[in-house]
């Protein structure tokens, strides 16, 4: 992403030009702040924005924690959902979106939260409920899960399999509706400013060793060593929200504790909020998880204190980004595009291969999964799950200056790099874990490794719950790439 540095602010130019009048003008500015400042700021307030947050902490005791057999024993930090609603103008031409007729206002919502993930049906339920309450079309809503492993996953496929719908799931839907509605009801003029700041707190976790991919730090693997920070603000008046991203599994706590918490994203926000409070500024701080299926924050299972400290480092990076000039969006256009591609899934691996794996698998849970896979392989017609995986992609474009691209599932970081390579936008902010999470989506190269593809990509990988789907086919990469190109084309104002 290439950030263009904004020019010297108009107010500064006024002050520099007036020379001896500076003290007088400074005094006047105390009484008439908007007379000196407001006019210039008004030019930059090209969008309308509102933001809100809500506590969505599930029951403290006995809640299933992400993809682990352990149940929660308390709450270290509360979980939150946060919503940012943005409104811009439908472009003069070019939008492929039927809801964006010329001259009409276009409204989008980005909702982030501290949950591990929502499967596609639950996410659809959220989209439907939010849309019904706010009038924002489902295609204009991005629901991003931080993929925090100290929180529940909501979905049919996620282990432990004995966790079904819970009463608090209904409350969660209501809370998501409430927080989005609050944001939508508080729209006011604001400017958008984007900046990318280098930082790193995670590493690629797929290391090739003895012909297999194992889970360990791979210093040469793909990574996303930055945070993208979108500041939504009325300069010198108020901060509406700060949406920042980073791409790494929040697993610094993981099995080190059975307490519910937000892992490093939660701690980052806690620190940012404290700094904002100390500085007398407010705003809703929102974390968007990147496409980080192959990246772990470090160190895995390092504990609460380590998560807090990793959060500290990320909060410093976000603070640096906020303080940087960044690129102020000049446009007021807002375009939306969404598509859903279907990823073909692999056939079950050969029966002998599965049996051999079962023979030396000691972990009982993994053994049960493999036995399920074996049943599929032995009775393909009877036991086979879905033949394809839904893969919804959406994009919000702000003029020709910024595009927010949302990818679902535990998509590998490669697809962020791909998006940046093919995108016509100067600034791109790519989210993963958005609008549905159903396991890993790796690259063609990873799937071609077959059984040696490791936890995330092997058809025998323990990451795949065989009751709902098998590993995607290697051709999936080309399908995803085409899907990304499609949404980028649709929101590319310069093409029309």
């Amino acid at each position, binding site marked *: 992403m290439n950030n263009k540095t904004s020019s010297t602010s108009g107010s500064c130019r006024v002050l520099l030009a007036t020379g001896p009048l500076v003290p007088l003008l400074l005094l006047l500015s105390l009484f008439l702040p908007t007379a000196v400042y407001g006019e210039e700021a008004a030019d930059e307030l090209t969008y309308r924005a509102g933001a809100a947050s809500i506590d969505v902490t599930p029951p403290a005791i006995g809640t299933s924690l992400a993809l682990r057999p352990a149940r929660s024993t308390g709450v270290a930090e509360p979980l939150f959902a946060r919503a940012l609603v943005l409104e811009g103008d439908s472009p003069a031409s070019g939008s492929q979106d039927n809801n964006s007729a010329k001259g009409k206002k276009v409204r989008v919502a980005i909702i982030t939260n501290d949950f591990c993930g929502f499967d596609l049906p639950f996410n659809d339920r959220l989209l439907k409920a939010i849309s019904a309450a706010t009038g924002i079309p489902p295609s204009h809503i991005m629901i991003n899960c931080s993929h925090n492993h100290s929180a529940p996953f909501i979905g049919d496929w996620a282990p432990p399999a004995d966790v079904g719908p819970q009463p608090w799931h209904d409350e969660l839907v209501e809370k998501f509706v409430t927080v989005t509605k609050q944001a939508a009801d508080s729209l006011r003029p604001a400017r958008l400013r984007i900046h990318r700041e280098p930082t790193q707190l995670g590493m690629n976790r797929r290391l090739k060793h003895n012909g297999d991919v194992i889970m360990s730090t791979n210093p040469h693997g793909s990574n996303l060593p930055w945070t993208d920070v979108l500041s939504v603000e009325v300069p010198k008046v108020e901060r509406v929200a700060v949406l920042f991203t980073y791409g790494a599994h929040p697993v610094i706590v993981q099995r080190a504790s059975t307490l519910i918490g937000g892992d490093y994203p939660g701690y980052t926000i806690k620190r940012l909020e404290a700094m904002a409070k100390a500085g007398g500024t407010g705003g809703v701080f929102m974390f968007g998880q990147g496409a980080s299926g192959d990246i772990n924050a470090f160190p895995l299972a*390092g504990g609460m204190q380590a998560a807090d400290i990793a959060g500290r480092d990320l909060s410093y990076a976000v603070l640096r980004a906020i303080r940087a000039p960044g690129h102020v969006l000049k446009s007021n256009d807002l375009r939306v595009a969404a598509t859903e591609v279907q990823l073909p899934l692999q056939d079950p691996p050969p029966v002998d291969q599965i049996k051999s794996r079962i023979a030396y698998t000691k972990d009982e849970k993994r053994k049960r999964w493999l036995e399920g896979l074996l049943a599929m392989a032995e009775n393909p017609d009877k036991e086979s799950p879905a033949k394809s995986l839904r893969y919804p992609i959406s994009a919000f474009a702000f003029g020709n200056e910024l595009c927010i691209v949302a990818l679902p599932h535990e998509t590998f970081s490669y697809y962020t790099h791909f998006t940046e390579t093919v995108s016509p936008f100067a600034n791109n902010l790519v989210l993963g874990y958005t609008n549905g999470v159903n396991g890993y989506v790796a690259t063609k190269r990873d799937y071609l490794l077959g059984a040696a593809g490791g936890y995330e990509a092997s058809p025998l990988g323990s990451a795949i719950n065989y009751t709902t789907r098998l590993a995607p086919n290697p051709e999936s990469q080309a399908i995803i790439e085409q899907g990304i190109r499609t949404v980028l084309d649709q929101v590319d104002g310069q093409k029309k």
Partner: protein
Amino acid sequence: MPAALLFRQCRRQVLALFLSLLFVAIASSATADDDATTDGAASGNTTTIRAAAAEVNITPTEPVYIVGPTGMSTGVADELFARVLVIDDGNAPLAIVTCDLVGTGIPYADALRKSIEEVAGIPADRVMFNCSHTHNGPGASLPADDSDKSYGRDVLKKITAITAEAMKNLEPAVIRVGREPCQIGFNRRLPTSDRVTMTVNPNGPVVPWVDVLAVYGENNKRIGILFSYAAHPVVIHSASTLISGDYSGYAATHLGRMLQASPRKGGVMMFAQGCGGNINAFPLKGGVDAANRVGLVLAQAVTRVQLQDVTPAPIVNASVERALPFQDPLPLKEAEELLATRPGDLRFQRLHKLAKDGPSPDMPFPLSGFAIGDEVCIIALPHEMFCDYQLWADKHSPYKQTFVFGYTNGVHGYVAAKKDLKMGLLRAGYGAEATPSRMPLKLESEAIVRDGISELWKKLDSAKDGSDTNE
């Protein structure tokens, strides 16, 4: 002969050759926890290597100053150790000593090496003394008087004693080396608009691997595993006032535990700090649990390494002495004017003080090296070397595998790279700017260090031919 048939026949030959090479490669490699033959003399080489290793607990029994929390220790999270690996090629023994100390001055290192020479019979210039630089471990120094009540003296005696003990236990051995990708830290120098600040710089240099030298005795007995990684042990730092070896201490503990289950039980696990002057293990101040986990990641990397036999050969050593010049202090008037602009700025205060104090003497820079034939070289550098030097040495070394230690034979502060020093007095940031006692190093320091390392290689090369090795 039809081309297709020729191709098929050639393909068989190529395949056979490939399989043969593969078999040879597999037969001569092993991971750190594999079973393997150990008879170095069986290779037909006339040099017989003998080796032994030992360790001793050096945990202070009374509160000591530790730099992480910048205060006195209040207890012990995990024990500190000093470890020694002695290798004898039949001509003269050598010793590599590692310890969980933050560092010592050159005089202390010299005294230790002299003590080892006198008591254990290993020439002082064939002793390397590496500190892990744990920020939750003490330093060591010798008291001005002959008092026995000194932690530094106690450590010196203990290390000397285990080295002498190791000398008595030498046994025929084989040496294997390997390198494994690993990363547990990040470059810690991030350039910002006004200066370099200490935080993660994903685009800064790091040394993303662990070097391993493993020594095995007869009957598959593991004597010791020396592994080296470059990153400040600061995962605990100020998060605790307890004494700890930080990630490097935990790595050695995890490694011992993991390898205990393998066929070759036992052995001494030794960590040597590389050139980690500008690299922090992550996360800084993450706490004791995090240090434990980071240590586990490093230990796992060591167990993965594919070790290759080192052909037994005379082990030569060489030493080079250099001195690194500091920049001249600012003219006093200039320093005063600077301080007047920002009287509260610590950097300006330092520059003013140094201008009043006058120039500092050069920084002593002793280098030493060991080489086994043309295959393995260990370079020992003092001080807190920036990793750029390790990367440079690795790239330019004439040896198949080169270990580069920092924090060895004395630690007197940072040695930054030229690119860092070039940023200037006020922008270069911690590690490359003035300290309370000295100006930053001159830019030519980098060339002096590189020249010293090159000279070391020349001397090692000469030593193989029987020439004198010392300046």
